[in-house]
C-alpha cells in the first residue's frame, strides 16, 4: 500500500460511520416513538385539501439552462486549480525560463474567452433571467 493512500484511511473510516450513524439513530427512534398510521395522516400535504395530480411533473427549461452554464463555469474553475498551484512554483520557474509570463498570459486568454465571453453570452441569451 502506498503512502498517499494512508491519508485516506481516516476518510474511509468516517465515510462508513457517517453512513451508518443515521440508520442507527433511526433504528433507536423507531423503538421509542409511537406508530399510529391513519389514512388522512398519510396523505401528501397540500394545504389541507386532497392532493390534485402528481408532483413529479415536467419542469421549466430555464433550470436546465442554469445547470448547463453551471457545468461550464465549474469545469473552468477546476482548470484554475492545477494552474494556481504551479504558476509560481520555483522549481518549474527555474526549469523553464519565461514560464510565469507564459502561464499568466495563457490563463488570461483562457479566462477572457471562456469566462468573460461565456458569461456575457449566457447573460445576453437570458439564461440568468427567471422566467415564470
Amino acid at each position, binding site marked *: 500500500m502506498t503512502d498517499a*493512500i494512508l491519508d485516506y484511511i481516516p476518510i474511509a473510516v468516517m465515510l462508513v460511520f457517517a453512513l451508518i450513524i443515521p440508520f442507527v439513530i433511526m433504528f433507536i427512534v423507531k423503538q421509542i416513538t409511537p406508530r399510529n398510521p391513519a389514512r388522512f395522516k398519510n396523505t401528501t400535504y397540500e394545504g389541507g385539501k386532497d392532493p390534485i395530480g402528481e408532483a413529479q411533473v*415536467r*419542469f421549466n427549461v430555464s433550470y*436546465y439552462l442554469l445547470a*448547463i452554464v*453551471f*457545468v461550464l463555469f465549474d469545469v473552468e474553475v*477546476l482548470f484554475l486549480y492545477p494552474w494556481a498551484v504551479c504558476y509560481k512554483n520555483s522549481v518549474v520557474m527555474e526549469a523553464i525560463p519565461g514560464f510565469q509570463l507564459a502561464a499568466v498570459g495563457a490563463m488570461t486568454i483562457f479566462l477572457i474567452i471562456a469566462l468573460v465571453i461565456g458569461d456575457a453570452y449566457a447573460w445576453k441569451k437570458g439564461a440568468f433571467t427567471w422566467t415564470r
Partner: protein
Amino acid sequence: MTLGESFEMIVFAVLAVVLIFTAIMVITSKEIVHSALYLLGAFAAVAMLYILSNAAFVGIVQIFVYIGAIGILIIFAVMLTTREVGG
C-alpha cells in the same frame, strides 16, 4: 501479499461490486430518476477507485464535476421529459 495489499484488494472488490451493481441498476430501473441517482452512485464508486489507485486529485475532481455538476445537469435534463407512471 502484505496486510496493506490485501486490505487494498478488499476495498477494491467492494467498490467494484458497488460499481457493477449501480451500473446494472442504471439500465434496469423502471423510474428514470432512479437511473440518474444510480448513475451518481456509480460516479462516486469510480471516484473512490481513482483515489484507491493513488490519483486523489482526479478522484476529488470526479466527485466535484460529475456528482456536483453533471449530476445536476442530468437531473434537470430528466425533468424535461414526460413521465409516464410505470412506463
